[in-house]
């Protein structure tokens, strides 16, 4: 049973009515409904729907699923939620008591996302239809019938109104909430093996806390979906650790301020989604040239331009690796799961410091908002030191030695006679500007070589399945789940298929050639376009790197996460 709780002017009734009418029309008799409308016009209101199929949720007097639009909706109705039930709440308006462990919490900025999808004039209107889209996704409802119902409902009104409603529905449906809940329903208490407890959070939280664990204490950003919650968390959390996150006037300011923190000896983080990363690009090039450590988080969404703000896509890989002018090598990492967001952030911090380099973390909107449970990390073991180091370096100190990885002496460090200027101009070992062709050659090579050195320490990723076979699926980022499920299913059916997931995208890990040699076909699965020549972004890079004609590409650009079936069908039809 689903209970929607909000105010009557939010149109909860009409959302519920759509569900009810869908039930009425549906051949497979899916649901019945009941409403408890409010007596006070404009006051609190609820709408309750019971799903008949019982596949995912069992019926009963208590709600399995509560949607709370406001704090009062949450307070008044949480008592009706079954133990183990799901509270889906508008995180823009509701702050639930997360300490109450009886329920599963799924916070979604419904108000913000609706405004983002429809434009500011939408205000509170459209939230109901957005939620309808969310529910349709969660319960796998017949979207064709639902969109027809919406069209019918607004027939006779202006096209604008119907289109707006459809846009709200699509935005809700596109929101990656499906993952959240399918995952959650798989959590069984019996799974709690081992001595470490499980922690539950979304990908942006895991990323933010991973950065804190990595000793990152300073950062700067500018809001954009789906990155904002990383900066919101860091803004509140970092002061607890004596650090600071600043909201800047724009992304140009944010990346510059983060570089100011890093230059001062405090490894810093900045982040955004595609549009903001585009703005940061010039300064990231400076970080490459001046060899300043920096972590840049890109929570990817559909692009280019404002694109699909609330949909998922993996189309910023080229931008992460190559974005900007000149030869500006940087590290690019991509977490595969929520848990991996935590550990990837720690690795990013370690690498940025060790190699004095910018490091990209490529997450995406599906990872950002998906909630997963994972074994609580052993913080004492994994946390990195955040201390500012002003120890005077040895007498042979130079900021840009040709034969060593750069290790800057931050301001405040007492030096002998000469003080260094870090710079974006090509320079000699002391940082003096130079136009010397020889120095530009050797410094360019120095900046490249340190990433080659870094590449040597990247372990060969583990293969899921056999080491030899017909097909090897390669993925990166949030497609980990569906790819592995697809491989599992196909293997159960007897297919010879394995999977490899890459966290390190630049530089690539060692030993991939040997792995590729064991397979007839290598299919790179990614959520971006096949490009002018028929290959997605990672596929193109792998083909350039390994010159292996066996490498092919399976891509899609519908703004939705891969379904297992899509992967299996896609791999099959390519044969």
């Amino acid at each position: 049973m689903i209970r929607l709780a909000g105010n009557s002017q939010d149109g909860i009734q009409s959302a519920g009515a759509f569900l009810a009418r869908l039930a009425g029309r549906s051949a497979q008799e899916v649901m019945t409904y009941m409403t408890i409308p409010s007596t006070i016009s404009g006051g609190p209101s609820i709408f309750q729907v019971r799903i008949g199929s019982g596949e995912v949720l069992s019926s009963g007097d208590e709600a399995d699923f509560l949607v709370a639009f406001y704090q009062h909706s949450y307070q008044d109705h949480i008592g009706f939620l079954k133990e183990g039930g799901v509270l889906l709440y508008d995180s823009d308006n509701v702050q639930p008591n997360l300490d109450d462990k009886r329920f599963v919490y799924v916070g979604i900025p419904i108000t913000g996302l609706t405004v983002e999808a429809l434009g500011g004039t939408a205000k509170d209107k459209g939230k109901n239809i957005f939620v309808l889209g969310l529910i349709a996704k969660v319960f796998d409802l017949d979207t064709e019938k639902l969109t027809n119902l919406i069209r019918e409902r607004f027939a006779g009104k202006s096209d604008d109104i119907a289109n707006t409603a459809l846009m709200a529905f699509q935005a809700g449906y596109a929101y990656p909430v499906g993952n959240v809940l399918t995952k959650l329903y798989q959590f069984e208490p019996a799974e709690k093996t081992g001595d470490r407890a499980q922690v539950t959070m979304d990908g942006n939280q895991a990323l933010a806390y991973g950065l804190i664990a990595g000793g990152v204490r300073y950062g700067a950003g500018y809001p954009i979906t789906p990155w904002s919650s990383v900066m919101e968390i860091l803004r509140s959390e970092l002061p607890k650790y004596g650090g600071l996150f600043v909201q800047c006037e724009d992304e140009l300011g944010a990346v510059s301020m983060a570089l100011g923190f890093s230059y001062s000896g405090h490894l810093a983080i900045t982040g955004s989604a595609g549009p903001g990363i585009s703005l940061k690009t010039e300064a990231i090039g400076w970080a490459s040239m001046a060899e300043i450590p920096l972590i840049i988080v890109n929570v990817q969404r559909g692009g280019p331009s404002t694109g699909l703000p609330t949909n998922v896509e993996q189309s910023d890989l080229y931008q992460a690796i190559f974005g900007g002018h000149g030869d500006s090598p940087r590290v690019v990492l991509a977490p595969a799961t929520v848990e991996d967001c935590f550990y990837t952030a720690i690795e990013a911090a370690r690498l940025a410091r060790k190699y004095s380099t910018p490091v990209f973390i490529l997450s995406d909107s599906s990872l950002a908002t998906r909630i997963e449970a994972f074994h609580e990390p052993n913080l004492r073991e994994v946390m990195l030191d955040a201390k500012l180091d002003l120890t005077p370096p040895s007498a042979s100190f130079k900021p840009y030695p040709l034969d060593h990885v750069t290790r800057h002496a931050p301001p405040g460090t007492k030096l002998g006679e000469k003080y260094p200027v870090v710079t974006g101009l090509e320079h000699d070992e002391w940082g003096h500007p130079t136009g010397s062709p020889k120095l530009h050659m050797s410094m360019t090579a120095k900046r490249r070589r340190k990433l080659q050195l870094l590449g040597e320490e990247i372990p060969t990723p583990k293969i899921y399945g056999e080491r030899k076979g017909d097909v090897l699926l390669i993925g990166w980022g949030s497609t980990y789940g569906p790819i592995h499920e697809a491989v599992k299913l196909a293997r159960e059916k007897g297919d010879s298929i394995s999977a490899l997931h890459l966290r390190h995208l630049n530089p690539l890990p060692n030993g991939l050639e040997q792995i590729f040699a064991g397979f007839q076909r290598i299919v790179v699965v990614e959520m971006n376009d096949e490009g002018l020549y028929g290959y997605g972004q990672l596929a193109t890079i792998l083909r350039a790197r390994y010159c292996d004609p066996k490498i092919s590409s399976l891509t899609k650009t519908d703004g939705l996460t891969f379904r297992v079936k899509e992967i299996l069908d896609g791999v099959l039809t390519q044969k």
Partner: protein
Amino acid sequence: MSTETLPSPAPDKLTKKALTADHPTWCPGCGDFAVLAAFYKMLEKRQLPHENIVTLAGIGCSSRFPYFVNTHGAHFIHGRAVPLASGVSLSRPDLHVFLFGGDGDGFSIGGNHLEHGARKNINLTYVIMDNFVYGLTKKQTSPTSPIGYKSKTDPTGAIDQPVNPMKKLISAGATFIARTHSTQINHMITMMERAMDHPGFSVIEVLSECVEFYPGAFDAANPRKGGALKLIEEKKYDNTPEDDARHDITDELAAYKLANDPFPGWFGVFYQNDRPTKNALEKKWIDTTRAKFGGAGDVDMLQKTFDRMK
């Protein structure tokens, strides 16, 4: 003093020699040389700990400044030096943050950052060498070029209304605003000292002649070239009738009126205000947050957060 106490070693004296780095690459006669000389003199006079001085800049002829000063420094990208310097200032209260740049760097490409650095009142000192032209890129119109100035991008004379730096800074909320002239070494030193001593976003506009692309631009305020340097007389609060006519530097409106005077205008401190800095406000927030959690160590703090997510 107890006899056991060893005399602390005399700190290294900050001499002009210790402060001198690369020989400036500016054209002979460029006004920026004098700004550099004034900066050396000010530092020699004040004897700050050498390692705690930071010299930062964006891009432009004037922005080459850090290479010519032997202190920790960074040469950043065009227009973004204010947020860079803000990051240094906010995370390192032990440092003296000095920022140098030109009119294009500060008022055009970096105009928005200037506004927000001022609004947030970040503790740093920013010296803008205003030559009314783009020097490094060789004579294009700058945001301060006067109407009629003939440049490569306005061959028949500039037509756009120039920025009035003083007005821009007052309305943005900068808390120390002064104007000086690169032929007036002592005046520059005084302005730099007062700016440095001011806790907050302190900005000095120095009219600094580009001998190459706008020669004679500031002669009107140079007594040696037949001009007149109109110095702002600040209130002394001495209860004399003359004091009524003097400028109250805490009066925003009066400062705005001074800034309205036609070129070459007034020189001296236009405005000063002791609004709390972002540095102080953030520190207060950090301190109260830390106190609320009993100053727990990093591991315990994160563990507590994770315990809530179980």
